[in-house]
């Protein structure tokens, strides 16, 4: 549904995006992670045919973003970084306006707006002016605007910013439903829990480049090593530690617990349990130690160094 190859974008001297390639299939959620100014928004703007890439190509919903930008903009729903609503309009008028711009018939637009307003618990406030809405409500209206014309592809920049937990859950459920209905979704977020919960694939962007990508499992394994397991017992571990150390790589241990890594838990864990049982050591629990995406992300961002600006003429210092 989204295919981008070697996208580059310059703003004068500033090389904002440096060769980003990505693919998102229908029914898949890609999370673009990265610090502010990494090039996520510029990438999304190129993919939603608002900006033209200087180099590289991209097809979205089967259309080239540079050759058919208007068709692409119709196929895409974009939730911008800021909700940016017209404060003096009511939610209904606002959505009807964008429905008209998307080419929807007024009745179709009204029905769809009503459906989405009800789903996001905004129906009761539909005739209130938008400047009276809370931040979370505004964010929801902006999300409805992006979904109004039932697009094949959605680009969502920080979709749950400023929302209370209940609203954030509603939005996450909506995104999951969209994924289930075969929409391709690109999620730009700093909320790593959200990315963990929703993304099928994660790309970390820094200085305009994808510096790491893969599924959460792949990234965690790549960056943090094999999964970490913890076994807890009811009595003090003595000789068992040395014994287990011959089977797996022990990371740490205490009187009644032990942490180890293994690349093949399906084989190692039953053997370890058998060994403890044979030694007469009752096991309370054996579980994988949760490793957050946050630690993966921080490892990636910490490892990559910022690069110099491109396009500087030889022998001349260009003022920034």
């Amino acid at each position, binding site marked *: 549904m989204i295919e981008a190859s070697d996208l580059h974008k310059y703003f*004068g001297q*500033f090389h904002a995006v440096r060769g980003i390639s990505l693919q998102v299939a229908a029914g898949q959620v890609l999370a673009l992670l990265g610090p502010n100014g990494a090039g996520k928004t510029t990438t999304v703007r190129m993919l*939603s045919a*608002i900006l033209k890439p200087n180099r590289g190509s991209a097809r979205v919903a089967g259309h080239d973003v540079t050759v058919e930008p208007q068709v692409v903009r119709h196929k895409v729903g974009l939730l911008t*970084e800021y909700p940016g609503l017209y404060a*003096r309009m009511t939610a209904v008028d606002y959505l009807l306006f*964008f429905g008209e711009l998307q080419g929807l018939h007024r009745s179709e637009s009204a029905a769809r707006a009503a459906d989405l307003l009800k789903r996001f618990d905004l129906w009761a406030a539909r005739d209130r002016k938008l400047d009276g809405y809370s931040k979370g409500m505004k964010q929801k209206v902006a999300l409805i605007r992006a979904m109004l014309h039932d697009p094949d592809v959605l680009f969502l920049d920080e979709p749950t910013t400023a929302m209370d937990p209940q609203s954030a859950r509603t939005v996450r459920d909506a995104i999951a439903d969209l994924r289930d209905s075969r929409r391709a979704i690109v999620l730009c977020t700093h909320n790593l829990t959200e990315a963990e919960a929703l993304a099928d694939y994660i790309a970390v962007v820094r200085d305009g480049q994808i510096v790491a990508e893969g599924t959460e499992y792949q990234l965690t394994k790549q960056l943090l090593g094999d999964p970490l397991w913890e076994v807890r017992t009811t009595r003090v571990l003595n000789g068992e530690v040395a014994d287990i150390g011959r089977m797996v790589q022990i990371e740490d241990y205490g009187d009644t617990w032990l942490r180890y890594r293994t690349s093949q838990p399906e084989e190692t864990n039953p053997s370890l349990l058998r060994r403890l049982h044979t030694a007469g050591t009752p096991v309370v629990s054996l579980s994988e130690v949760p490793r957050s995406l946050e630690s993966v992300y921080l490892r990636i961002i910490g490892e990559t160094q910022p690069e110099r600006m491109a396009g500087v003429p030889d022998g001349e210092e260009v*003022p*920034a």
Partner: protein
Amino acid sequence: MTLRPIRAVARREMRDNLTDWRMLFPVIILTFIVPAVILSAALYAIRFIGDNGSVARLIPFGLLLSGFLPASFSLITALESFVGEKERNTLESLLAMPMSDGELYLGKLTAALLPPLSSALIAMATFMLWYNLAAPPDIIDRVRSDLMWLMIALIAVKSIVMVAGAVIISSHTTTVRAANLLASFVLVPMSVVVQLEALVIIAQQPQLLWNIFWALLAVAVMLVRTGMNSFNREEILSREHAGFNVKRIWWTFKQFLREFHPAGVPAEHYEGRFTLRRFYRQEFPAILHEYRAPLLVSCISALTGLVFGIFAFGEYRAAWLDNYLQHSIGNAPDPSPLLALGIAANNLRVGLLSNLLSLFCFGILAFLVPSAAFAQIGYVSAWQAAHGLSPSTFMLAYVLPHGIIELPAFILSSALGLRIGGALLYAPQGFTVGQNILWSLANFAKVFACVILPLVIVAALIEGLVTPHIVRALYGG
């Protein structure tokens, strides 16, 4: 291009403005109260002075002013049409919609134009209503229907010029504050036009207003076309990354001075060092080729000036000018280096000021320089012919010796100024508006120093030292 998105954008914006009391209240006052006040003041002045003949000339101007004040309100909405949305973060969602740049631009233009224009027309109608009700019978014929329609046409075209100019400014700035500061590019020329109209009305030469109308119409068409051509999503969003950096501006300007490349080639690609040899052999011909359109416009300006000069002699003869020409033609001043110096200084001042100030008036001043020079030639030639003297003698004595150098220099200088003025309106692919201005200023600096300056000095030396002898020889003085 389809009507639907244009209509949708325009309708939303107009509704937004017309439901805002901060906008609506002043518009109501300007539409219904101010015209009545203007008319009352004019009628009071007529009664107070008791001279219907002269003071009543203010009535048509009052009508024009009644329309202009609400029309000028369009600047506020037009100036913030794009940059205001950008500041409120509403623009990106609009840019993400499946409509063309032209449709979005026209929607914004329509929204900014229609309410103030309607308000101006209602204000003029209010003025005329009060005028017909309250004016004494002896001055009731001061605003004939043909004059009234002309006034309406003038207000309409002025509104388009103001709105189109302001929308261009709005789409090329990053903050509302910057847009408001740049509004002087629209307001100052418009104020000059209004003053000119006042003079023409008070001088009771209403037919001249048609010339102003056609000139404004040409500017309006140019601005709308320029706005449509120069407006694009890319530029608006790219400007988020632009900042005001004096060092960077100076560096870019110096790069453009180094050598000549066509507009749009980034400053980073300028690598050579400036040499006079390369400038005269390669760059100057390339600049002439690049500037062929402004050169053509300058030539048209000169030709128009010549024709206008001849026409003006037939239509608007002034006794004082006749007397001046009677006494001065054939009586050349004594040739002297001081005379040459004075002429050179004057011509250089005109060239420098008209070109640099063109940046603030879309090149209008640069356009006027060849017009004015050739209008003088046309007028005096016609005067010569009318007095049984040969225009060719005048040309041979007064124009050709130095003019053969000076007039092409003026045309070239005017072309450079037109490019400077146009730089604000349209940036070619690869340039921002700022880079476009710097590029045109750098070319002006190089050509002015290396070509125009020597030509003007040589022409002034001929005019100050040789022309007086030729005049005396041909006119027998």
